[in-house]
Structure formats: C-alpha cells, structure tokens
C-alpha cells in the first residue's frame, strides 16, 4: 500500500512520536494590574478579546475587522510607534483559518506587544499602511507567501516571487521542493508548455546525478576526458596530492614554515 500523506499539510512530520507524549505549553502570565501592559489592555478596552503575557511580551487577540482601530489606539495613545513585523501563520488544516500577527514596539518604554487576529480562508484584512509604512512591504510579503488579500494597500503585488507565479509558497499545502508549476516555470516561460515532453522531467530535477555523464560530473579517482563515453567502465587514476608549501614572504629569506602563521 502507498504511504498515506495528508494533503492539507505536506510539511515534514516527526517520524515517531510517543503515543503518551503531551507537549507542554510555554507559561502564559496574567497582565498584572498597574503595569505598563495593564494600561495598554485598558486603553484597548473591549477591542481586546484575550490578553496575556508570553515570554515577556504582551499578546492581544482582536477581531480582524477592528485591526486598524486597534493599531491606531496602540500607536496614538500607547506609544507603539513602530511595527517591527507583520505576517501570518497557516492554520488552514486544523481550523480553516490564518492567524495574523502584528509585532509592535514602544521605544520610550522598551516594551513589545503582539496583536493576533484570525481570518477565515478567502477573507481579506484591512491594510495598516496609513499608520505604519513598514507594513507596506510586510503586507506584500504576506500576500505573496500566503495569498491573503489586503484591502486598500497602496501597491499589493507579489514581492519575492515572480508576478506570474502560481501558488503561495508558505502555505502548508505547498511542498518544500515546489509543485509542478514551479519545476517547469522557466521551461514554460521560455520555450512553451509543449517543450515539457522534449526536455523531460529528469532534466528538471536539480539534484539528479547521471552516473555516466562526463560533461557535468567527474568521479574523484576516476577522471576521464570531457565527454568521454564511460558506459563500459573507467580506469582508476591514483589521486595525487600536491605538497603544501608554506613560505614566509614577510622575510627576505623566503624560509619554509611548518605551520600557518
């Protein structure tokens, strides 16, 4: 029987997990009253659905429709003037959702807040570029890598992959080695799809090694002239090592050294 691999998550899995293994969780602390983070949570009020501290940073869960409002409050009343990072995590296989995060930085207090929101597959999110210009590139990258549309983005276009690329590479359904489109991308573009048969899939595998190809490969100890036919086997050439000569050129004598200076 063929081995079953789940289609909704083709990333590498642990080959063995103890059946009684339960992964522990990083402790989540409550926001202490009177601290800076408590003031942030108070300022957000009902907009914050859930808030806790995880490894020294405040994590706030919000509704995806209110992201701009939350960012505006964080920027204007809480002093979070920099959006360090913005991206998504793919939870389509488990929940059919993406988890988006915004990592914000307050420079005067040296505090960091992470804002989380979850959107369903096919939903889009409002852009925060009017507040943080750094989101311009970050949101484009998120669109490129996950296919999440960002509304009212000034220039929503693929940023890292080519414009005519198909698929979004960081989705869990996208294989690490790339899909069929990826392996034929250059061939389709330069020669046309009909040349796929002429070139053949074996020539699109970058890790393929042809045992008898003497134009691109050379076996150490069995060197033959370029392009020679070795289907009959090849003769062994003993490896000749050159002697390393270390010369101290800083002195006039040019004396040989036993080791590197």
């Amino acid at each position: 029987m063929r081995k079953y691999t789940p289609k909704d998550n083709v990333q590498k899995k642990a080959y063995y997990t103890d059946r009684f293994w339960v992964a522990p969780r990083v402790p989540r602390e409550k926001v202490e009253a009177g601290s800076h983070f408590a003031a942030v949570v108070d300022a957000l009020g009902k907009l914050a659905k859930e808030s806790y501290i995880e490894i020294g940073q405040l994590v706030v869960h919000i509704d995806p429709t209110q992201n701009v409002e939350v960012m505006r409050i964080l920027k204007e009343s809480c002093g979070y003037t920099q959006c360090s990072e913005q991206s998504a995590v793919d939870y389509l296989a488990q929940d059919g959702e993406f988890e988006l995060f915004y990592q914000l930085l307050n420079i005067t207090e040296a505090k960091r807040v992470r804002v989380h929101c979850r959107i369903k597959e096919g939903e889009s999110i409002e852009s925060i570029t009017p507040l943080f210009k750094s989101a311009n590139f970050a949101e484009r990258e998120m669109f490129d890598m996950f296919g999440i549309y960002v509304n009212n983005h000034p220039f929503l276009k693929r940023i890292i992959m080519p414009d005519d690329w198909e698929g979004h590479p960081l989705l869990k359904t996208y294989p690490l080695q790339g899909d069929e489109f990826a392996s034929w991308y250059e061939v389709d573009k330069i020669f046309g799809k009909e040349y796929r048969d002429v070139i053949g899939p074996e020539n699109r595998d970058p890790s393929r090694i042809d045992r008898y190809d003497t134009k691109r490969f050379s076996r150490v100890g069995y060197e033959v002239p370029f392009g020679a036919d070795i289907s009959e086997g090849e003769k062994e050439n003993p490896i000749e090592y050159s002697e390393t000569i270390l010369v101290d050129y800083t002195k006039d004598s040019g004396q040989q050294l036993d080791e590197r200076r």
Partner: protein
Amino acid sequence: MQQPNKLTPFFENLNFERDDNTMVINFGPQHPSAHGQLRLVLELDGEQVVKAYPDIGYLHRGIEKMAENMTYNEFLPTTDRLDYIASTSNNYAYALAVEKLLGIEAPRRAQVIRTMLLELNRIISHLFFIATHALDVGAMSVFLYAFREREYAMDLMEDYCGARLTHSAVRIGGVPLDLPAGWTEKLASFCSKVEYELEHTYNALLQENRIWKMRLENVGVISAEDALSWGCTGPMLRGSGVNWDIRKEEPYELYGELDFDIPVSDRCDSYGRYRLYMEEMTQSIRILRQLIPMYSKTEPQLMAHAPQYISAPKEEIMTQNYALMQHFVLVTQGMRPPKGEVYVPTESPKGELGFYIKSEGEPYAYRLKCRAPSFFHTGLLQEILVGTYIADVVTIIGTTNIVFGEVDR
C-alpha cells in the same frame, strides 16, 4: 510599443514611449553597487528621481519554508545564509529565540564567547560597510585598507570555528568549542590594530575629506518619524536621532554588565550614519577589551544543562548510558520545544534582527519568521530616493547597508 514574445515578455512596469519627458531605467540586479541582487526601477526626470520601485526576490531561497521542514538544530547553519556578512549575529539571534522558547540560559563562559564573537562580527560587518560604501561613492583606497583589517578579523574567526564567512559558531544552548590557546591575546592585539587604523587610516582618509563630505552630507535625509514608521532600526534609526539600541534597552547576553555607549546622530543624513558606524566600531573594541579579562574568570562549561533538549557533553555520552540514549533521540528526532510562540529581537550590525518562532510541540517549527532589518530598509528606498539625483542613488543604497541574503531570505 512593446512587441512581447516568449523570450521578451511584456514589461508592465516599463513604459518606453511616454508623453512626458521622464525616462525609466533599470538599476540592477547586476549592478555592482546594488549590494547583491537589488533591481531598482527608477523613473527619472532629467537627473532627478521621480519614482523608485525596489524589486526584490532574486536571491529568494525559501529559508522560512526550510525552517518548517528542518529540526531546530538542523536549521541553525542555514541562518548563516541570511546576512552572510555577519553570520554569527544570525546564528545567535536564532539560537537565542529557541533558548527563550525552551527557557534555558547558556553558561557563563559560552555567554562571554558569544558576546566576543558578536562584537567581532560587528567589526567585520562595519568594516565591510565602510569598505563597500566608500567604494560605491568612489574612494577606492579605503576599500583596500578596510578589507585588510577585515581579513585579520576573519582569521580570528577561522581560528575559533574554522570558517571565515559562514561561522555557525553558536549553538542552541551555548557554543560548541572553547577558545583556542592564545586567542584572547590575538584578539587584544587585533583590537589595538583596528583602533589605530580607525584613527589613522579610515578617519584620516574620510572624515574631513572634502569630496566624501560633499557626497554624503544632506544625502538620504530621513526624519525620525519616517524612520520609525518605515521600520528602520540600528544605525538607520540612530542616524535619525532616535536613541534606540536593543543591546542597551532590552539587554541580552552580557550587554547588561558591560560598559559601552550608544552613539546617536541627529544629522539624519548619510554622513551622520557613516560617523555612527565608525563610532560603533570603537565601542565594539571597548566591549571586547572588557570581555577578555571576564573570560578567564569563568567555569569551563560550554553548553547549558538541559538533558531534555540539549545533548550532554561528549565525556558523559561516552560513559553514561542515559546520556547516550538522550543524545540518540535528540540527534535522530530533534528537540521538541513546548507549545508557544516567541519573538526575540537582537541588535545585529544592520539593525533589529528578530526571530518569531511558533512551536506546536513538534521537532519542526510550525512557523518561523525572520524579521530582517534590511528588508524594511529596502522598503524605505521607494520613499527616500524620490527627489534625489541619480548620482546619489548609489550613496543612499550604500548607506542603508542592505544585504540581500536577508532581504529575500
């Protein structure tokens, strides 16, 4: 009108026949001053840039995707390829993020060695910046002198870990090796050498150089608000008068105990940033000099003791059965951090390098996001290049100090 065919596709962002008097040119991706693989589409009105569009992705290797398919220890050498000018800072940022997730701390000697390597790497990276920036602007000789000192620093790196560019000299939980005999003395003499060269060569060649000042002063001006909004960090932010250095504000490793200053410039231009880089090298030398006596006072333990996550030292593996079993599991399956997420920022030579790791309790990270400073500095180019002259474009790209390994990832 364009005549698209299979070999010359339609360039939608290039308009060759225009009604106005502007010209669209492609800067890169093979331009020697494009710092790797930056393609910049510039719309010029005469010599003035009207519109700039940075096009990136020519060096994309899917490092974040690879992180999801590699165990935590396997991925560490891959981080070398992010900012390949300062590999240790990437290794360290990643290792620190995983350590925070695991809740472990490296032993004292490993911390001293890591801080030494980080600062040595900062000097390597800054020397590279001075060299290439000066070369871009047209000062050839600085390049030769700065690369000479960079070679000495890389020799030190080579003595420690065997590699010159892709170090992987930091491990999750500590460092793999102790310093070789006599390394700290070599480091001390390197510090004095660089200090001397900084004052007598680079500063003498550049600081008051009339041409250098004319090319750099009031070029690439970024206001503090813009710098914050565009996500600038490191010298780009401090060059705009914002006193923000993660080593000082959110101290990690030994930076809380060390005595050093954070240079800040309120000039907001390229010249101010150049001065910052020079001053930061002096401060790095100061840190290294404080670290050398600290090294001899530490215990010889190099890796943290966390048997669930980190293999025991070699002697224990070879003598104790349980240590060997755990080593076997850790090598074949990889460590399983607890469920949770962490974002750890560090101050790399270019700015804030942070790793966001989302763990689902598996030996493979569920999501890893590398917050690379250069990525956001590249985004800034589309705004600060507008209104400048074509001759200043190279200066501005140089001053942002972008490295495409971490822009495209």
